[in-house]
C-alpha cells in the first residue's frame, strides 16, 4: 500500500506569538516549530499500515525552508521518502489554493491512501483533507480514530460529537483526516535518524506547479482578540494568591 502523509510544521505549543506589523502573519524569528500534533498521529498510523501490509510511506510538507525539519523527522521515524513543497509565503494561501497545490504535488504518485491531520494548530482551516479528496476525486472520511484495512476497502471509526462514534466503510483509494489520540506515536531511534540521512527529499517549488485562479478569500489582518469577559487577576506569591483566591471563592463567588 502506498500511503502519503501530509505534515504541517507549526509553531511550538508554548511559542510566544508576536504578530508582524503588517498583521499578515506571526514573527517567525526566535520561535520554535514542531510537527502539527494530529499529523504526528497520522504519520504513526501510516507507518503501522506499512508494517502490517507492506508498501511505502511518503511524507509531504508545504512551507518555507524550516519545514524540511518535519520531513526529516518523519523519515527518521520510518517514512521512505519526502516531498517538500516549498513556499515562503504559504500563509497567504487560502484553504482551496493551498489544497490545490498539495493535490497537484500528490497526484502523479497515485497513492492508495492519503492521510492528513484533522486540523492545523496554526491556520486551523480544518478543511485540507476534505479538499484534497474532492480535488483528487477520492472518497474520504474525517476525524478518524481507528483504521482497518479489509482488502480494497477500509473500515473506519469516526469520532462524532459528545462521546459518540460511528463505523463507516469506504473503497480505496481514499483520504482520511486523523484525530489526535488514535495511537501512541513512536520516537525516532538513533538508527532511524542515521538511516534518514540517506533518504530522498524531493523539492518542488510551489510556484512551479502553476496553480491558476484567484484565491477565494483573503486574511486581512491577524490580531489578539479583545477580551469579552473581565477576568479578575489575582497576584502575589503563590501562597498569597492561593489564600486570596480561596477567600474570593468562599465569600465573593460563594462556590466553596
Amino acid at each position: 500500500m502506498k500511503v502519503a502523509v501530509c505534515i504541517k510544521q507549526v509553531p511550538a505549543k508554548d511559542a510566544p506569538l508576536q504578530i508582524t506589523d503588517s498583521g499578515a502573519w506571526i514573527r517567525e524569528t526566535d520561535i520554535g516549530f514542531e510537527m502539527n500534533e494530529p499529523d504526528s498521529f497520522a504519520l504513526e498510523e501510516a507507518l503501522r499500515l506499512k508494517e502490517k501490509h507492506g508498501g511505502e510511506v511518503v511524507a509531504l510538507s508545504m512551507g518555507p525552508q524550516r519545514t524540511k525539519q518535519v520531513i526529516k523527522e518523519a523519515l527518521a521515524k520510518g517514512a521512505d521518502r519526502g516531498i517538500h513543497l516549498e513556499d515562503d509565503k504559504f500563509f497567504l494561501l487560502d484553504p482551496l489554493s493551498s489544497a490545490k497545490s498539495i493535490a497537484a504535488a500528490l497526484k502523479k504518485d497515485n497513492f492508495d491512501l492519503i492521510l492528513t491531520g484533522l486540523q492545523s494548530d496554526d491556520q486551523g482551516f480544518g478543511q485540507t483533507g476534505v479538499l484534497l479528496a474532492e480535488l483528487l476525486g477520492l472518497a474520504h472520511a474525517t476525524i478518524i480514530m481507528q483504521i482497518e484495512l479489509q482488502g480494497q476497502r477500509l473500515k473506519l471509526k469516526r469520532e462524532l460529537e459528545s462521546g459518540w462514534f460511528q463505523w463507516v466503510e469506504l473503497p480505496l483509494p481514499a483520504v482520511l483526516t486523523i484525530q489526535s489520540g488514535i495511537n501512541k506515536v513512536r520516537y525516532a531511534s538513533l538508527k532511524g535518524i542515521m538511516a534518514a540521512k540517506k533518504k530522498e527529499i524531493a523539492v518542488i517549488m510551489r510556484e512551479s506547479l502553476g496553480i491558476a485562479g484567484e484565491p477565494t478569500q483573503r486574511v486581512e489582518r491577524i490580531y489578539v482578540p479583545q477580551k469579552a469577559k473581565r477576568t479578575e487577576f489575582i497576584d502575589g506569591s503563590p501562597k498569597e494568591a492561593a489564600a486570596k483566591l480561596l477567600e474570593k471563592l468562599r465569600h465573593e463567588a460563594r462556590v466553596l
Partner: protein
Amino acid sequence: MKILVITEQREGKWNPVGFETLVAAQQIAATQTGSRVTPAVIGKDVRGLAEELAANQVAEVLLVEHDLLKRYTPDGFAIALRQAIAQLQPDLILLPHTYQVRDYAPKLAASLDKGMIADCVGYRAEKERIVFVRQMFQGKTAADVTFIGAPPWFVSFQAGAFRGDQVSRGATRAPITAIKTDLRPEQIRTTPLELFREAKQAVDLTQAPILVAVGRGIKAPENIPLAAKLAKLMGGELAASRPICDEGWLPMDRQIGSSGQTVAPKLYLALGISGAIQHVVGMKGSRTIVAINKDQNAPIFEVADYGIVGDIFELIPALTEALEKTK
C-alpha cells in the same frame, strides 16, 4: 443578498446549533438591503422539520429529501445540496460548524470551485462587504477574513457564536419548496454503519458541583495525584483536557469538551489548560471559572472569572496547604 442556511438534524431531531446559524443569517440579512433568508433541511421524511422552520422569519424553506439521504454520507449530502444551490442561486451559504459540516462542506464548496471560511466566531458588516472573524493559533489570535471573487460564499459558524433562542419568528408562514433531488446509489461511496458510544461512563461529571481540570501543563502522569488531592479537598471531581485522556493519564470519561462531556458546575478550576475552543465549549457554562496558567495570554483567561498567572506546581501545593489548614 440571498442567504441559504443549511440546518442539521439526525433521525428527525434538530441539532440546535443550526438555529444559531439561522440567527446569524437573520442578523446578517438585517444589515443588507433586500436580503432573503432561506433555511434548508436535508434528510429523509423531514417535511415536519421544514414546517417548523417555516414558522420563522424566513423567505422560504427548502426541503431536500431523498431515500439515500436517510443516513448522512458526504457524497449524498454534497450532491443533493449542490442541486439545491443550483436552484436557489444563493450569494451566501451559512452552516453550523459541526463535525458533519466539517466532513462535507469543504467538498461541496470545492466542487463549485468556491471557498469556505470555516469556524467563524462572528462577522462585521461593512460598506459593500462582510468581514468574517475566525480564530487562528488555537484561539491565541483572531483573523478578519473576506471573500474574493463571485458568490456563492460558504461560511460556517462555531457553536455558541450566536444565540439560538434569538431567532425571529415570522408573521406569516413561509412557503416550503421541495427540491427535486436526483441521487443514485452508485454515486455514494461511503457505507455508514452503526453509531455507538464507548463503554459506559464510570463517573458522571455533569453532576459534580466542583471540577478540578488538568491540561497538558500537568506534564506527567505522576503529577495527576497532586490535582486529585486538591479536587478531593475541594469536594470536587477530577476532569481533563483531551491530550491527558489521549495519553491515557486519565480515562476518557473525564474529558471535557466537544468530543467529551459538556459540564456546568458551580466551580471549574482549569489547571494548565490553554483554552482551545474545543475544550471551552464543554465548560464555558460553568458558574465560576478559575484558570491558573503560566501564559498570561492563554485563551482560557477569555472565559475565566478569576485568573492566576503562575506555575501550577507552585499553586496546587499552595492551594492544597491553605485548604488543609482551614479543614
